[in-house]
C-alpha cells in the first residue's frame, strides 16, 4: 500500500510540476517573444549544416536552432520547453537511480528541472545549454549499462563517446560527461578509487581539449574547455548555466562522500533513523505541495515582467500594434532610449506624435527619436525599421546589412533586405535572400509570395506597401548623416513633400534640439500636408519663440494658435512667476498641470538642459 501510495504521489508531483511549467511558459514567458528576440533560423540545406560541423559544439547550436524556430508559435514553444525540461528531469532521474534510492532520485531529479525553468525565463537564453547538459547524461546512462562489461569494451565506448561529445556538443559537454564517469567509477569501485576507465576518461578529456586548439584554427584553448561559456564568444550565456552543469557532478560527489566517508566508516550505522509508515503517509502529500512551492519560488525569482515588456514593446512595434506599444511602454522606464523610440514611432502611426510626444518623459531627446548616432548591436534593426517607415529605403537597407552582419541570417533581417531590394529594383540580391528563406520551413511561404515580384513591375505596383515606399523614397542622391539625421529628413521632405512622417520627425527633431526658429520658419510645411490645425507641441514651441524673441518673424499662414494652448501657456507662466522664475521651486506645480508640455520638457527633461550623455557601447 505505501508503495502504491508513493508511486501515486510521484505521478501527481510530476504531473503538477510539468503542467505548471507549461502554463508558466504559456502565460508568462511566451516563447514567441524568445523567438522574436533571438531570431533563430534553420535551413534545410547542407551548407547550413556544414557551418556547424566546422567547430566543436556546433551540433548543439544546430539542434538548438532547429527546435527554437518552433518558438514562433506560443503553444508549440511552450510544449517544446516543457518537453525538454521533462526529458532533462527524466534523464537525471534515471542516472541518479544508479546512485541514490528511488525516492531520493525522484526528489533530486527536479534540481536540474528547476534550474532549467530559471534559465528559460530569460529571453536571451538559447537551447544550446539544454543540449550540452542532456546529451552527456544520455551517454553516461549508456555507459552505466556497460559497467559490467570488459574494460576494453568500456574504454572503446568512452573513447567514441568523448569524440562525439567533444566535436558535436563541445568541451563543456565532455567535461560534464567526464565528471559523471569518474564519479560513477569511484562509486562503483568500492575502495579502489583509481579505476583504469576513470583515468582513461580523464586523459581523453585532457588530450582532446589540449590538442584540438593547437591543431584546429576554429577554436582556442578557452573555447575548447568552456564551449559556450567562453566570455569572448558572441553568445554570452547566463552565469546560472554553470549551476546547471555542475548540479549532477555535485550530487554525485555528495553521494560518493556519503558512501566513503559516512557509510564506509560506519558512521551511518551509528546515526540511523527511520520514518514510520504513519509519518510517511503524512509526509507524502506534502511532496507535491513542496515541489509546487519550490517551482513558484523559482518562477518568482527568475521571471521579470520588465524583461518581458522590454521584448514585448518591440514585438508589438514589429507587428504594427501601436496601441499595445504605448500600453506596454507604461510599465517600462523611458531611460531606455529604444523604449522612447518605439513610443515615438507608435505615436506617429497613431497620428498623435506632435500632440502627445511630451506626455512621455523624453529623456534622450532627439536620440530617442532617431537612434543612428550610436552603432550598437541593439539598435540596428530599429534604425532600419524607422527608415523603412519613412521611405528612406537605401538607408533602411544599409542598417539591415549591418544587422545581418551582427545577427547572421536573422529571418526578420533577411526579409527586410528582400523588401528593400525589391523596392529599389535590385532583384538579384532579393532573389538571393528569397532562395535562402525558401529553405526555412517557417519562411518559405513568405519567400514564395515575394518570388514572383522579381522583375515584375506590375505586381510590385499592385502591392500597396511597396508602391507607397517607391513613391516616398528619394530619387536624387544625398549623403546620409547618422550624427545629424535632421538633414536626411530635410532631403526626404524636399523630394517628397507629402512625406508626413519625415515632416513630423523633422519638427520633433527640431523641438528636441531646441531649434525653435527652424520650427517657426517651417510652419508652412503643415499646409502642404493639409493639417487642420497646428499640432499642440508645435503651438507650444511657437508661443515660446514669440515670448523669448518677439521680433522673430513668424508667418502662420492660414493657421492660428489655439486659445486653449494660449491659456495653458498663461497658466504655465503664472506658476513660474509665482515662484519668481525659480525652476526648482516651480517644478512640482508645473509637472502636475503641464508635465506633458514642450515647455516643461525644455526646462526640466531635455538632455540639453540636464546635460545627460549617452554611454552606449558601439559595435
Amino acid at each position, binding site marked *: 500500500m505505501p508503495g502504491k501510495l508513493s508511486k501515486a504521489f510521484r505521478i501527481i508531483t510530476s504531473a503538477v510540476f510539468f503542467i505548471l511549467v507549461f502554463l508558466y511558459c504559456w502565460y508568462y514567458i511566451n516563447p514567441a517573444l524568445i523567438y522574436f528576440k533571438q531570431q533563430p533560423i534553420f535551413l534545410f540545406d547542407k551548407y547550413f549544416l556544414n557551418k556547424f560541423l566546422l567547430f566543436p559544439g556546433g551540433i548543439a547550436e544546430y539542434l538548438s536552432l532547429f527546435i527554437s524556430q518552433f518558438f514562433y508559435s506560443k503553444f508549440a514553444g511552450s510544449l517544446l520547453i516543457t518537453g525538454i525540461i521533462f526529458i532533462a528531469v527524466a534523464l537525471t532521474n534515471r542516472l541518479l537511480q544508479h546512485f541514490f534510492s528511488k525516492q531520493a532520485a525522484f526528489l533530486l531529479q527536479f534540481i536540474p528541472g528547476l534550474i532549467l525553468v530559471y534559465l528559460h525565463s530569460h529571453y536571451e537564453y538559447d537551447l544550446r545549454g539544454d543540449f550540452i547538459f542532456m546529451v552527456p547524461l544520455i551517454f553516461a546512462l549508456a555507459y552505466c549499462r556497460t559497467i559490467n562489461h570488459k574494460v576494453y569494451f568500456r574504454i572503446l565506448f568512452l573513447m567514441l563517446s568523448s569524440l562525439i561529445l567533444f566535436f558535436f556538443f563541445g568541451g563543456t559537454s565532455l567535461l560534464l560527461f567526464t565528471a559523471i564517469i569518474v564519479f560513477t567509477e569511484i562509486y562503483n569501485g568500492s575502495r579502489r578509487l583509481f579505476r583504469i576507465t576513470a583515468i582513461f576518461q580523464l586523459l581523453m578529456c585532457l588530450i582532446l581539449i589540449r590538442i584540438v586548439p593547437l591543431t584546429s584554427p576554429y577554436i582556442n584553448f578557452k573555447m575548447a574547455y568552456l564551449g559556450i561559456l567562453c566570455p569572448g564568444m558572441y553568445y554570452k550565456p547566463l552565469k546560472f548555466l554553470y549551476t546547471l552543469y555542475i548540479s549532477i557532478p555535485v550530487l554525485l560527489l555528495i553521494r560518493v562522500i556519503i558512501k566513503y566517508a559516512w557509510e564506509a566508516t560506519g558512521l551511518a550505522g551509528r546515526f540511523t533513523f527511520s520514518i514510520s509508515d504513519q509519518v510517511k503517509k503524512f509526509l507524502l502529500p506534502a511532496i507535491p505541495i513542496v515541489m509546487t512551492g519550490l517551482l513558484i519560488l523559482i518562477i518568482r525569482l527568475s521571471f521579470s515582467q520588465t524583461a518581458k515588456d522590454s521584448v514585448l514593446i518591440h514585438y508589438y512595434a514589429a507587428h504594427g500594434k501601436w496601441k499595445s506599444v504605448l500600453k506596454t511602454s507604461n510599465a517600462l522606464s523611458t531611460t531606455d532610449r529604444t523604449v522612447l523610440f518605439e513610443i515615438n514611432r507608435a505615436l506617429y502611426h497613431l497620428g498623435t506624435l506632435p500632440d502627445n510626444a511630451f506626455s512621455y518623459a523624453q529623456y534622450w531627446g532627439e536620440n530617442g527619436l532617431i537612434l543612428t548616432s550610436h552603432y550598437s548591436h541593439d539598435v540596428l534593426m530599429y534604425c532600419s525599421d524607422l527608415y523603412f517607415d519613412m521611405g528612406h529605403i537605401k538607408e533602411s537597407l544599409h542598417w539591415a546589412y549591418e544587422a545581418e552582419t551582427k545577427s547572421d541570417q536573422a529571418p526578420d533581417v533577411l526579409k527586410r533586405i528582400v523588401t528593400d531590394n525589391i523596392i529599389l529594383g535590385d532583384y538579384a540580391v532579393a532573389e538571393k535572400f528569397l532562395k535562402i528563406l525558401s529553405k526555412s520551413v517557417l519562411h518559405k511561404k513568405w519567400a514564395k509570395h515575394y518570388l514572383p515580384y522579381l522583375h515584375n513591375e506590375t505586381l510590385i505596383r499592385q502591392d500597396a506597401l511597396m508602391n507607397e515606399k517607391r513613391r516616398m523614397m528619394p530619387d536624387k542622391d544625398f*549623403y546620409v548623416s547618422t550624427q545629424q539625421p535632421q538633414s536626411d529628413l530635410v532631403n526626404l521632405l524636399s523630394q517628397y513633400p507629402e512625406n508626413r512622417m519625415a515632416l513630423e520627425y523633422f519638427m520633433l527633431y527640431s523641438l528636441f534640439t531646441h531649434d525653435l526658429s527652424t520650427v517657426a520658419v517651417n510652419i508652412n510645411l503643415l499646409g502642404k500636408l493639409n493639417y487642420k490645425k497646428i499640432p499642440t507641441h508645435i503651438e507650444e514651441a511657437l508661443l515660446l519663440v514669440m515670448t523669448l524673441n518677439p521680433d522673430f518673424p513668424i508667418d502662420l499662414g492660414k493657421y492660428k494658435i489655439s486659445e486653449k494652448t494660449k491659456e495653458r501657456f498663461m497658466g504655465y507662466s503664472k506658476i513660474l512667476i509665482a515662484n519668481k522664475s525659480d525652476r526648482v521651486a516651480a517644478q512640482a506645480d508645473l509637472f502636475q498641470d503641464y508635465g506633458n508640455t514642450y515647455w516643461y520638457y525644455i526646462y526640466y527633461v531635455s538632455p540639453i538642459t540636464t546635460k545627460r550623455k549617452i554611454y552606449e557601447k558601439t559595435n
Partner: protein
Amino acid sequence: MEKKKNDLMLGLVLLLLMVILAGRLAGYHIPSRAEPKDEYPDIFPDYKEIVVPVNIAPLNFKVNETARSYRVVFSNEAGKKIVLRSDHGKISIPRGKWRKFLKATVNNDYKVETWTRDQPWHWLKYKSWSNHVVDDKIDPYIAFRQINAGYILWEKMGIYQRNLENYRQTPILLNDRTDRNCMHCHTFSDRNPEKMLLHMRRPPSGTLLYNNGEVQFLNTATKYTMSACVYPSWHPDENLIAFSVNIIHQKFHAAGKFINSVNDAASDIVVYDIAKNMLTTCPDLCTKSLETLPVWSHDGRYLYYISCSGVDKLTPDTAVKYDLLRIAYDHTKGTWGRTDTLISSQETGKSISFPELSPDGKYLIFCMSDYGYFTVYSPTSDLYLMDLEDMKYTKLPVNSETVESFHSWSSNSKWFLFISKRLDGLYSRVFFSYLDSTGTASKPFLLPQKDPDYYDAHVYNFNRPVFIKDKVSVSADKLTKAAYAAKKDVAFDPEVDVDALSGATRIERDVTREHTN
C-alpha cells in the same frame, strides 16, 4: 528442396545486380538520337569558352534547364572522354578523371556537349562549346578575408586560404580567437606563404608579421604618423614593406547605384624596414596630396602609388580623382629618386586605384572608376591593363556592369584574379583570367566549388583575394599567441625631415584627433 530454394534466391540476386548494373551503364550512354537545339544550355557558373589552367580543381557546374535527365560529355581531340549523368542538373566531375583529362588536353581544346531529356526517349542536344587548357599553372592557393555584407560593423570574420587544385578551404586565422576583432590587409611577400602580414583593429590591435618562421606583433602607430600602417606592399628584397597611412571616412548614399563611398581625409606613404624596426618616408610621398596604395615594382626600383591633389574639406567626393605615379628607389643606398605621373586623372576624367604589377615586370593592372579609390564599393570600377614597355593601357575584356576590383597576379604572370559583384550585385566573388603572350585576357571564370549551389547559400564576401604559392603553415594558435603577447613599437626614422601627417614639417601627431582605419 532447400538447394533449389537457395539457387533460386541466388539467381534472383544476380538478376537484380545485372538490372542495376545495366541501369547504371545506360545512365552513362550518350544519346544516339537527339533533337538539336541551336543554343547553349544555361549553365552556372558560366564555364563556356574559357581558358583553363591544367592544375585547376574540377569545374563543376549546374545546367539550369528543366529536364528529367542530363548528360554532359567532355571530349578532347585525343579521343579522351568524360561522360557524366545527372538527374538534377548538377554536373560533378570526378577529380582523378578531371586531372588526367586536363593533362591529356594541355595546349588544346576540349569540347563540352550537353543533352537533356524532358520526356521519355526525347533528348535535346544543345550547342557545344570548347575550353582551352594551358600548361601555365595557376598558383595553387589563394588567401582572402571572409566578411559579411555590413559596411561599418563586423562580427565573424577570418583570413582563409583555399586550395585551387581541390576545394579545400581552411582558416588561417579567425577572429573567434581574437575577441572578435577586425582583421584585414593580409599581404604576402611575392606570394610566399612564409612571409605574411595582417592588421588587426580593436584589441588586440596591431600588425601581425609572420617572417622566417617568427611571428611579431607590431604597433605601427607612431607620433609622426596620422594612423597605424594600412595598405601594404612588400619590397622584393623582403626586408622593406611600403604602407600607406590613412584617415578613412565612410559615407552612405540615399539614392542611385552607390550604397556607400569610402574616402580619405588624409593619406601619406611610409616604408617599414623590418630589420631596423623603423618607418621612414620621403617628402614626395608625404605631401599635402593624398598618396596611398603603394606597390613595389618587380625589381624594387620603383614604388608605384596613387595620388590625388588639391583636395580639401569642401571638395565634392565626385571630384576626388587619383593619378597613377611612381617614384624611383635605390635600394642599395636607400635613396629616393624622381617622381613620374604615369596616368593623370585630368586626362582620363576618371580615378585610378589598386595598381598591381605582374611579377615579370611587363604589365600593370589597375582599377579605374568615376571617383575615389576604394573601388570595392564602386559599381563604376573596371579593370585596365597597362603595358609597362610603352605605358599604354586598355580596358580589360573581363569587366561587367558592376564592381570589378581587387586583383592579384599569379607568380608566373600568366593568371590574374579579381573580385567582381556580377553574380548578385552585393557579394564579391573571385574570378580568374588568363593573359596570353600578346597580352590578351581570356573570358574570366568563377572560383570553382564542389557544389555549384555553393554561391546561392554563401552570404560572405571574398575580400582581398591574393595568390599564394603554397599553403600558409603557421598555426592559428601561434598567430593568436603573438597577438596577445607584448606589442613591439615601431620607431620613426629620426633622419627624415618630414612626417607622414600630410605636412612638410615634423610635428607631433595631435593625439586628440579621432580617426578610423
